C-alpha cells in the first residue's frame, strides 16, 4: 500500500499520456533545465539587472530616499523652529526680567524717596513737641497720620503708641497686624498682583497668620476701647469672618466655611461677643459695621475688592476721618465709611 502510494507520488505526470498537457509539461521541464543556475558556481540567481523589476525597484528606492530626505528636512526645520522659539522665549524672559528689575528698582526708589520725605516730616513734627512733657495719644495720632499708609513706618510707630496707650491704640495696632506683613513693603500687601516672586513666599506665610496676630488686640479693643474703637474692632473681626479665603495664599472664592471649618469656628467664637458689644440698631452698626461686612462678604475672592486685611482700609481707622462726626448719626457714620471705601478704591487703581 505504501509502495503504491510512493510510486504514485514519484511522478504525477504519468497519467497524462499522449495528451497536450504532457507535452506542455515536458517543455516546461526543458525550459527549467535551461534556466537552471550553474550549481558549481554557487551564485544565487537574484540578478535583476536590466529587467523591468530593477526599474521598479529603483523607482521605489528613489521614492523612499526622497520621502526620507523630506522627512529629515521637515525634522530639521521643526528643530530649527523650536530652537528659534526657545531663543525668542529666552530673550523675552530676559527682557521681562530686565524690565521687572527696572520697574522694581524704580518703585523702590520712589517708595524710599516718599518714605524718606515722611520720615523728615515726622522728625520735623517731633521737633515741635515740647521736650519736657511726654508724648500723648493726640501726638501719636498726628505722627501716625504723617507716615500713613507706609507700613514700614507705621508698624513700629503704632506698636510704640500701643505700648504707651493700649486702650487708645489697640484697634489700630490690631489693624496693622491684620493688614500688613513685617518685612514686606507696604504696596506689596495691597493685593497679590503687585507682588514680585520672592515677595510671594513672605506674603503667603504672613497672610495666614494675620487673624491670629491681630485678634488679641481687636478683642482687647472690643473689651476696653471707646465706642468707636469697639465698633471698628467688631467691624474688622466680622469682616475677617466674612472673608476667610482672603487669609489663604491662593484665594479660593466660595470655599471659606467648607474648607476651613476650624478657622471659621475659631473666628465665630471671637466675633460672637460683638452681638452685644456693637449691637444692631446703633448708628455705628448701621453706618459702618453692617455695610462693611456686607461689602466684604459680597466681594470676597476678588483681590481687587474690599478686604479688611489691606492697608488701604486705613482711612477707616484714621482718627482724622472721624473728627467732628456724630457717632449717634448713622448717616454721618456712613459718610465716613463711604469716604474710606472711596479712598480704598483709589488706592487699588
Amino acid at each position: 500500500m505504501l509502495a503504491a502510494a510512493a510510486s504514485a507520488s514519484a511522478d504525477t505526470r504519468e497519467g497524462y499520456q499522449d495528451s497536450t498537457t504532457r507535452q506542455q509539461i515536458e517543455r516546461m521541464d526543458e525550459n527549467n533545465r535551461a534556466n537552471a543556475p550553474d550549481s558549481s558556481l554557487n551564485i544565487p540567481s537574484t540578478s535583476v539587472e536590466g529587467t523591468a523589476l530593477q526599474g521598479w525597484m529603483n523607482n521605489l528606492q528613489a521614492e523612499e530616499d526622497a520621502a526620507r530626505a523630506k522627512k529629515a528636512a521637515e525634522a530639521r526645520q521643526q528643530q530649527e523652529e523650536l530652537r528659534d522659539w526657545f531663543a525668542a522665549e529666552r530673550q523675552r524672559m530676559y527682557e521681562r526680567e530686565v524690565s521687572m528689575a527696572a520697574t522694581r528698582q524704580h518703585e523702590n526708589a520712589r517708595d524710599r524717596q516718599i518714605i524718606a520725605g515722611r520720615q523728615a516730616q515726622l522728625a520735623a513734627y517731633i521737633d515741635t513737641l515740647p521736650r519736657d512733657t511726654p508724648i500723648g495719644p493726640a501726638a501719636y495720632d498726628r505722627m501716625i497720620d504723617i507716615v500713613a499708609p507706609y507700613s514700614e513706618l507705621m508698624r513700629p510707630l503704632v506698636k510704640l503708641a500701643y505700648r504707651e496707650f493700649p486702650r487708645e491704640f489697640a484697634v489700630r495696632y490690631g489693624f496693622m497686624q491684620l493688614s500688613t506683613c513685617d518685612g514686606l513693603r507696604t504696596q506689596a500687601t495691597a493685593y497679590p498682583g503687585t507682588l514680585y516672586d520672592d515677595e510671594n513666599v513672605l506674603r503667603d506665610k504672613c497672610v495666614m497668620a494675620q487673624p491670629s496676630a491681630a485678634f488679641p488686640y481687636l478683642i482687647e479693643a472690643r473689651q476696653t476701647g471707646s465706642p468707636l474703637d469697639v465698633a471698628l474692632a467688631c467691624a474688622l473681626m466680622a469682616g475677617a469672618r466674612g472673608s476667610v479665603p482672603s487669609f489663604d495664599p491662593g484665594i479660593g472664592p466660595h470655599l471659606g466655611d467648607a474648607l476651613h471649618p476650624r478657622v471659621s469656628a475659631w473666628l465665630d467664637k471671637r466675633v460672637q461677643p460683638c452681638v452685644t458689644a456693637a449691637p444692631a440698631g446703633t448708628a455705628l452698626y448701621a453706618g459702618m459695621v453692617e455695610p462693611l461686612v456686607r461689602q466684604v462678604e459680597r466681594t470676597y475672592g476678588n483681590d481687587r475688592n474690599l478686604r479688611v486685611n489691606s492697608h488701604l482700609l486705613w482711612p477707616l481707622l484714621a482718627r482724622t476721618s472721624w473728627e467732628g462726626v456724630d457717632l449717634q448719626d448713622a448717616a454721618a457714620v456712613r459718610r465716613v465709611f463711604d469716604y474710606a471705601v472711596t479712598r480704598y478704591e483709589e488706592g487699588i487703581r
Partner: protein
Amino acid sequence: MRRVLSLFVIANMFLPATTLAGDGLKPGMIPIGEHRRLAAEHSTREDVLELLGPPADEVDVKAAKLLKKIDAKNRSGIEPCLPAGASVYHLWKYQMANVSDGGFEYDSKRFGDPYVYIAFREDGRVCVAFSEVADF
C-alpha cells in the same frame, strides 16, 4: 507652595461638605500648611487646640539631638524656644495630611515635610511652629 495649595483648594471642591467638616481628619492630623495659621508670640495653647485640634503626640527631645537632626532653616526659629536652664524641648507633634481620593492622607512623594512641631513659650504662647522631615 502656592501651586500645591491651589491644588489642595481645587481638590477640596470635589469633596462632600461632611468630609470637610473636620471629620475627615484623624486626631493629630492637620491639612498641609495649616500650622501657618498660628502667630508666634500671639497664639495660645487654646488657639492651637481650636485651630489644629489636639496633637498626635507630645514629645520631649534633647536639644542637641533636635538641633542636629532638623533642617537648617528651622534652627534659628527653635533655638530661642528652649526654656532657660533646660536641655530638652517639649513639643506638640502633628502629622501633615493632604486631601486625596476623598480622604486625608499624606503623600510624602509629593509634599516635603510630613510632621509639624510646635514649641511653646513659658507663658503658654506659641514660640515657633515648623514643618519637618525628622520624626521624633
